[in-house]
C-alpha cells in the first residue's frame, strides 16, 4: 500500500474519531518529516497493521458488509470437513444474531430485515423461539427495551471448541481479512478451547443454548453443595423397619380381599383404592415371589441412600393418615420395564375449551379442574362410581347428578382464570392459583374457601403443596417463586433470579429444595431455607412446562414446549439424556412410586412410559464410554383425541391420567 495513502487513512480515522489534536500533530509531523519515518512503529511495513488500518478506513456504516462477511463465513463453515463442521457451524448462530443486532443498532432496519430473513432458515431448527423473539426487533430502542436482546448484547457466549477447529477459524478470518466477523466473534464469543478430537455432534446440548449471562453464574452456582438424600425417618424407612410384618399382613390381605375380587371386578369403572387393590391382587398372584425379592432389593437401595435432616419444621402427621399411607406403600406394585402399570383415564367432557388445569389427588379419588371462568370444580370419583352402580338403591341421594343436579363441587372465589388447582397430599385441601394474582386454599370437606394468599404481583401460574403438606410453593409471571406456609398470610421465602416467567414449580422429596421451570428455558433448584439458587439446568430449547422429581431425590425430569423431556442429575446439574418422542407440549410428568418408570402426558394426545431405572444404572457403567442414550420409550398409549393434562402415580402405583377431550382438528 502506498505510504501516503496510509497516512491519509490514519488522518481520516483520527479525525472521524474526534482525536483532533492528534490529527494535527500527525499532520505537522508529516509536513516536517516529509514522509520519512516518524514513529517507533513502522506501520507502513507491518502487513497486519496495514490491514487493520485499511479496514478502519472502509466506510464503517456500510450495511452490506455484514451480509457479505456473514455469507462468506457461512459458506466456509458449511463446506468445512465434517469432523469439524458441527463445531464451526455452532459459531454461526451467535455471529448471525449479533450481525443482525448490529444492523438494527445502527438503524439499517431494511437491511437488517433482509439479512435476517435470508439466513434465519439455518437456525430455525434449534433456535426457533429465539428467532421469533428477535424477529420483532426493528429499532435501536427495541434492543434497549427487550430484555432478551440486552442480555445477549451484554454477555459473552461460551462455545467449546477443539484446538484444531479454533485454529481453522482464526486462520480463515485472517486469510480473508474479514475483520468485521473477527470483531463480532471477539466481542461476543468466549471460546473454551480444548485439545484433542472434536466432540461428536450431538452430545453437547448445552453448547448450542444461548441464555444471556447465565453461563458464568450457572457454572458458579452449580458448584454449590446440595444434599439430595431423602429425609431421615421417612415413611419408607418406617416401612422397612416394619418389614417383618410385611409378608404376614400381605398374606392376610390377599385372603381377605380374594372374596371381594369378583364383585369388584364387575365394577371396573369404580376407581380409587378399590381399583388399585384389584390391580394389586392380580399382580400378586402373578408373581408374589418376584415382587418380594424386588422389594427387598429396593429397600436395601433406599437404605443405602444418604439421609438428610429436614430444614423446615415438619408438620405432624396424624396417625391414621400415616397408617393409610403405610398401608398403600405395603401394597405397592413393583413396576419395571416388564411390569407395566394400569392407566385409568379421566376424561373431561363439555369443557367448552375452558379447562386450564386439572389435577388428581394421591389416591386418585378426587379430581379437580381449574377453569378459565374463574371457577374450580372438584369431582369425587369414588362417589360417582358408587352412584353409577347403586343408583337404584339410593333414592334420596343428594350429590348424584342423575336427577339433574351436578355431581361435582363448585368452588367459586377467584376473579380470573384459574391456572392451577392441586390437592394436598392427604386430599383434604385444594390449592388454586389464578390470574387475579392470588392463591386460594379450599377445604374439600367443607367445600369452602379458607384462605386467600396475596403476595404475587402478577398472574400466579402454578402452586404446589410440599410432599408433607402444610408448606406450599407458588410461581408467577412476576418472575419469582415463593414459599408459603398454610398458617401465614405472607410468603416465607421469595426466590428471584429467573429471567422470565416462572411457569412451573415442584418440591424435592426431602422438602429442602424446590425446582422451578421458566420461560427463560432453564430449570433452577432453590434452597428453601436460604432462598438461594443452588442449581441452574440449561439445555431446554423452549419454555419449560412440567417438572417431576424422582422419589429417591436424585434425578429430576423436565418437559418443554417442543415435546422434549430432559432427565437431570441434581448433583452435577447435567442432563443425563433427553427423551425424545412427543411432538407437542409435555404438560405433565410423573415418576412411579419406586422411581423406575417415568410417565409423560402431552398435547399430542398420548401418555408415554419411559424406562428410567435401567438408564440410570447403565449410565454409571457407561460414563466412560460416553454413550448414555439409553433411556427408552417403553409404551405409548394414545387417547382418542384427548390431550393429557395431568398424570399421577398413586402410592400403589396405579397411574391416573386426566385431560379434556378436544374435537379432532380435521
Amino acid at each position: 500500500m502506498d505510504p501516503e495513502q496510509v497516512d491519509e487513512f490514519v488522518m481520516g480515522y483520527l479525525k472521524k474519531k474526534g482525536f483532533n489534536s492528534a490529527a494535527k500533530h500527525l499532520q505537522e509531523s508529516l509536513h516536517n518529516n516529509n514522509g520519512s519515518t516518524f514513529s517507533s512503529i513502522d506501520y507502513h511495513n507491518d502487513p497486519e497493521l496495514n490491514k487493520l488500518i485499511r479496514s478502519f478506513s472502509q466506510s464503517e456504516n456500510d450495511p452490506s458488509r455484514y451480509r457479505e462477511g456473514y455469507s462468506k463465513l457461512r459458506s466456509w463453515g458449511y463446506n468445512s470437513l465434517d469432523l469439524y463442521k458441527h463445531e464451526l457451524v455452532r459459531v454461526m448462530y451467535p455471529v448471525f444474531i449479533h450481525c443482525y443486532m448490529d444492523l438494527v443498532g445502527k438503524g439499517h432496519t431494511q437491511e437488517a430485515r433482509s439479512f435476517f430473513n435470508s439466513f434465519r432458515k439455518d437456525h430455525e431448527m434449534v433456535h426457533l423461539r429465539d428467532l421469533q423473539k428477535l424477529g420483532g426487533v426493528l429499532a435501536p430502542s427495541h434492543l434497549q427495551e427487550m430484555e432478551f436482546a440486552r442480555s445477549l448484547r451484554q454477555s459473552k457466549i461460551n462455545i467449546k471448541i477443539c484446538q484444531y477447529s479454533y485454529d481453522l477459524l482464526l486462520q480463515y478470518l485472517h486469510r480473508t481479512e474479514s475483520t468485521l466477523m473477527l470483531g463480532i466473534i471477539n466481542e461476543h464469543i468466549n471460546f473454551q478451547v480444548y485439545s484433542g478430537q472434536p466432540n461428536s455432534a450431538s452430545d453437547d446440548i448445552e453448547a448450542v443454548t444461548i441464555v444471556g449471562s447465565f453461563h458464568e453464574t450457572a457454572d458458579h452456582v452449580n458448584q454449590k453443595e446440595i444434599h439430595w438424600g431423602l429425609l431421615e425417618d421417612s415413611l419408607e424407612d418406617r416401612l422397612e423397619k416394619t418389614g417383618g410384618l410385611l409378608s404376614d399382613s400381605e398374606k392376610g390381605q390377599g385372603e381377605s380381599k380374594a372374596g371381594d375380587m369378583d364383585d369388584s371386578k364387575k365394577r371396573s369403572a369404580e376407581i380409587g383404592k378399590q381399583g388399585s387393590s384389584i390391580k394389586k391382587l392380580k399382580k400378586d398372584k402373578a408373581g408374589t415371589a418376584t415382587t418380594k425379592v424386588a422389594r427387598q432389593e429396593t429397600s436395601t437401595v433406599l437404605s443405602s441412600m444418604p439421609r438428610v435432616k429436614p430444614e423446615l419444621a415438619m408438620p405432624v402427621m396424624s396417625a391414621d393418615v400415616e397408617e393409610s399411607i403405610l398401608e398403600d406403600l405395603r401394597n405397592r406394585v413393583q413396576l419395571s420395564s416388564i411390569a407395566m402399570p394400569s392407566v385409568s383415564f379421566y376424561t373431561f367432557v363439555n369443557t367448552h375449551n375452558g379447562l386450564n388445569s386439572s389435577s388428581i389427588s394421591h389416591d386418585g379419588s378426587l379430581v379437580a379442574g381449574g377453569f378459565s371462568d374463574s371457577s374450580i370444580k372438584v369431582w369425587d370419583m369414588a362417589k360417582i362410581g358408587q352412584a353409577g352402580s347403586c343408583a337404584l338403591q339410593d333414592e334420596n341421594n343428594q350429590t348424584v347428578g342423575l336427577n339433574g343436579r351436578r355431581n361435582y363441587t363448585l368452588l367459586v372465589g377467584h376473579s380470573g382464570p384459574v391456572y392451577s388447582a392441586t390437592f394436598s397430599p392427604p386430599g383434604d385441601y385444594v390449592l388454586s392459583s389464578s390470574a387475579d394474582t392470588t392463591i386460594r386454599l379450599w377445604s374439600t370437606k367443607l367445600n369452602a374457601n379458607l384462605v386467600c394468599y396475596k403476595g404475587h404481583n402478577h398472574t400466579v401460574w402454578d402452586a404446589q403443596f410440599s410432599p408433607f403438606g402444610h408448606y406450599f410453593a407458588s410461581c408467577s409471571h412476576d418472575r419469582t417463586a415463593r414459599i408459603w406456609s398454610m398458617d401465614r398470610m405472607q410468603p416465607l421465602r421469595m426466590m428471584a433470579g429467573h429471567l422470565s416467567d416462572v411457569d412451573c414449580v415442584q418440591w424435592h422429596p426431602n422438602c429442602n429444595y424446590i425446582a422451578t421451570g421458566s420461560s427463560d428455558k432453564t430449570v433452577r433448584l432453590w434452597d428453601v431455607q436460604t432462598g438461594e439458587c443452588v442449581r441452574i439446568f440449561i439445555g431446554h430449547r423452549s419454555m419449560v412446562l412440567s417438572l417431576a422429581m424422582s422419589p429417591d431425590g436424585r434425578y429430576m425430569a423436565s418437559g418443554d414446549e417442543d415435546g422434549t423431556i430432559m432427565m437431570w442429575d441434581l448433583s452435577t446439574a447435567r442432563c443425563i439424556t433427553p427423551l425424545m418422542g412427543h411432538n407437542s407440549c409435555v404438560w405433565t410428568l410423573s415418576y412411579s412410586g419406586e422411581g423406575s418408570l417415568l410417565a409423560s402426558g402431552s398435547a399430542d394426545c398420548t401418555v408415554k412410559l419411559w424406562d428410567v431405572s435401567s438408564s440410570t444404572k447403565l449410565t454409571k457403567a457407561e460414563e466412560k464410554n460416553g454413550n448414555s442414550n439409553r433411556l427408552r420409550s417403553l409404551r405409548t398409549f394414545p387417547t382418542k383425541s384427548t390431550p393429557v393434562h395431568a398424570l399421577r402415580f398413586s402410592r400403589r402405583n396405579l397411574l391416573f391420567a386426566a385431560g379434556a377431550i378436544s374435537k379432532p382438528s380435521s
Partner: protein
Amino acid sequence: MSIVPKETIEVIAQSIGITNLSPEAALMLAPDVEYRVREIMQEAIKCMRHSKRTTLTASDVDGALNLRNLEPIYGFGSGGPIRFRKAIGHRDLFYTDDREVDFKDVIEAPLPKAPLDTEIVCHWLAIEGVQPAIPENAPLEVIRAPAENQIYQQKDGPLIDIRLPVKHVLSKELQLYFQKIAELTLSKSNPSLFKEALVSLASDSGLHPLVPYFTNFIADEVSRGLNDFLLLFNLMHVVRSLLQNPHIHIEPYLHQLMPSVVTCLVSRKLGNRFADNHWDLRDFTANLVALICKRFGNTYITLQSRLTKTLVNALLDPKKALTQHYGAIQGLAALGHNVVRLLVLSNLEPYLSLLEPELDAEKQKNQMKSYEAWRVYGAILRAAGLCIHDRLKIFPTLPSPSPSFPSKGKGKVISTEPNKRKLGVDSSENRSPHKRLIATDGSDGGPSPMQVDRPTGDANPPQNSVRPSSSEQASDGNAPESRNAKEKDDSKGRAITRKAILDQIWKDDLDSGRLLVKLHQLYGDRILPFIPSTEMSLFL
C-alpha cells in the same frame, strides 16, 4: 420494511382524529407497532400454554393485555370468526362486517339451549401396560398410521407396541351389538333396519374386536345356509360393509372370509327355489371379490393369483355346472380387463365350442338348461366385449362419425325387433337382471345387445310397453327355438353386408384389431355394441 405498512398507521391515526400525521412519523411508528404486536402475541402464547391449549384464542390475547397492564378490548366477543369484507372501489381496503341487530329480534328469539355441564368419564387407558380395545380408546390401526410419520422416530425399539390382550374380553355393548346384527342378518324380515345396520357396520369405529366373531359367523352361516338365497345375500352385504369400514383391520381374517365369498360366487346351487335370483348374488359377490383383490392385493400378493386359479379351474372344468361357469366368468370379469384378456379370451374358442350344443335349442331340450347356457353366453360376451371396449379405447380416436351411420343403425333396430321380443319372452321371470347385465352403455334397458349401439333410443319405450302383453301370451315352449333361428339368420345377413368393409380396415390393424376380428367371428355382430361409437364409426 416492517410488516405494518405506514398507510395502516395513517388510517388508524385518521380514525382516532389525528389528521395531520406526518409520513415520517408514520414511518417511525410502523416498526414499533409491529414490535408491540409481536410482544403481545408472545405473551398470548404464554397464556395459551398455561391454558393447556395449542390453538390461540381471543381470550389469550385478552390475558396477554392483562399481563401487560393494558386496557382490555371492550365489547362483545362474537362466537364465530370475524368476517372481513372488501371495500368496493379499493383494492386493499377491508372492513369488518358489523351488522345491525334489531332489538326486537333478539328479544323475541327463543332462548338458546343451555350448554351441557362439564362432566368426567373414566375408562382404562391401559391395563398392565396393554391397551384394551374398547370404544373409549383410539382404534388400533388408526393410530399406527400417523405414528409412522412422526417427527421424532427413535431408531432403537418401536415407539408403539400394542398387543391385543391374550384373553379376548368383549364388552357387554359389543356382545349386544353382535347379537343384534346376527339376528337381523338371519331374520330377513326387516330390510330397512338391516340397511341401517349395514351402514353402522361400514362406518362405526370400535368394532374391531368383533371381526373374528363376524368372520366365524359368516363362514358358519354360508356353509349351513347354501339353500337360503336371501341369507346368503345378506351375509355378502355384511362382508361388504365390514370391508368398507375404515376402522377395521380385516386383513388377518381374510383367509377365513375368502372361502365363504368364493362359495357364493361359484357354488353349484345357491338357494333352493326357482324364484331365487342367484345370478344377482353371483354378480354382487363378483364385485365383492374384485373389491377385496383391489384393496388387499398389494399386501397379500398371492391372493389374486390363487383366486384366479380357482375361478379358471371352475370355468374350464366341463363337468361343472353352467351356474358355476357363470360365477367364474363374472368373478374373472370383475377382476379387470387384463385378467379377462389373459384368461378368458385365450380359452374362449374351446369354451364356446363346448357351450354350442347347450345353446342349440334343438339339441338341448331342457329349457332351464338352455336358459342357463344363454346366461353364461351373455356373461362371457359381456366380459369379452368390455375387454375389447377397453382395448379399443387406447386407439387414436377419429372424431368423424359417418353420416350414414344413424340411418343404418335405425334399419338394424327395425330388423332385429322381433328377435328382441323373443328374448324378452324367454326371460320373462328374470328379465330385469338380464337387462342390466347386457345393457352396458347405459341406455334405458334395451333387452338385447343389438339395441345399445343405436344412437337414438326413442323407439324403445313403446316397444317395452308393448312387449309384456305379447310376451305373456307367447310364452310357450317353442319360443326359444324360434328366437335362435331368427337370430342366426339375422346375424348372417348383417355379417355379409359389413364383414367385407370391416375386414379391410382391420387388416392393417394391430393385434387388438385382430382380436376384434376373432371375437367378431365368434360372436357375430353381438360384440359390436361394446365398441365405442367413435371407433365404430372408424370401422364403418
